């Protein structure tokens, strides 16, 4: 009897792949701004507490930083999933990893948004 080779469907769907690419391009722009503000413009290469709070009083900055945060977390976790796929994990391992990545992503996104909100509140108190 001739065995036909098993054919696996791609485990990173087109939409997930496309999201990783689009998020990556968004991050390049936002990370560029982040690097310039935090390491190039800032005296001695790092913003002080007062500088950070003042920076977040610029109206579009909190929204930009939240977008950056969400895109960078999602891109990192989808990328980690891609690296995991290189190891050809079993479906059960991949399912468990997916749940873990979603929990980590949601947790850090909520934490980051709370942190942005906390900094904005401190700027309002100035």
């Amino acid at each position, binding site marked *: 009897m001739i065995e036909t080779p*098993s054919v696996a469907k791609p485990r990173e769907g087109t939409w997930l792949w496309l999201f990783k*690419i689009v998020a990556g391009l968004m991050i390049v722009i936002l990370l560029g701004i982040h690097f310039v503000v935090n*390491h190039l413009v800032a005296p*001695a290469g790092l913003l002080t507490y007062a500088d950070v709070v003042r920076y977040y009083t610029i109206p579009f900055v909190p929204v930009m930083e939240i977008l950056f945060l969400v895109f960078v977390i999602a891109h990192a976790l989808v990328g980690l999933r891609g*690296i995991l796929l*290189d190891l050809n994990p079993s479906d059960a*391992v991949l399912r468990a990893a997916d749940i873990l990545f979603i929990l980590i992503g949601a947790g850090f996104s909520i934490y980051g948004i709370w942190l942005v909100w906390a900094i904005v509140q*401190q700027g309002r108190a100035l």
Partner: protein
Amino acid sequence: MMKKSPSPVNFWRWFDPRNRSISTWGFILNRVTALGLTLYLFMHLIVLGKLAQGAEAYDAFLEFAHTPVVMIGEMLVIAGGLIHGLNGIRIALNSFGVGVVRQKQILVGLMAAALIGTVVFAVKMFGS
């Protein structure tokens, strides 16, 4: 697509330097910087929690962040970010069929740009 059996050997193959083309080096560079940047991202987010504790806590951390070891670490992150970001643009373009024929030249050019960018940041950070 043939389904390969699960094996950690597939992971360790990334670090095998034999018979590698320059585009494979680009792929490896992308993966290695991705792992480093992901580790840094989550550490960075946790440390930024100092901002919620007020000026004293954050500025005390900044003193530590200005030590040479941490500054060199920051430079590695900037270098990793530039390498991953610029190499990522090449991979995205290649995925859509753009620049595939000249991907080696594009990779070398972008990595040269990453090196120049890293030097600019280093001069600013260590020169001030």
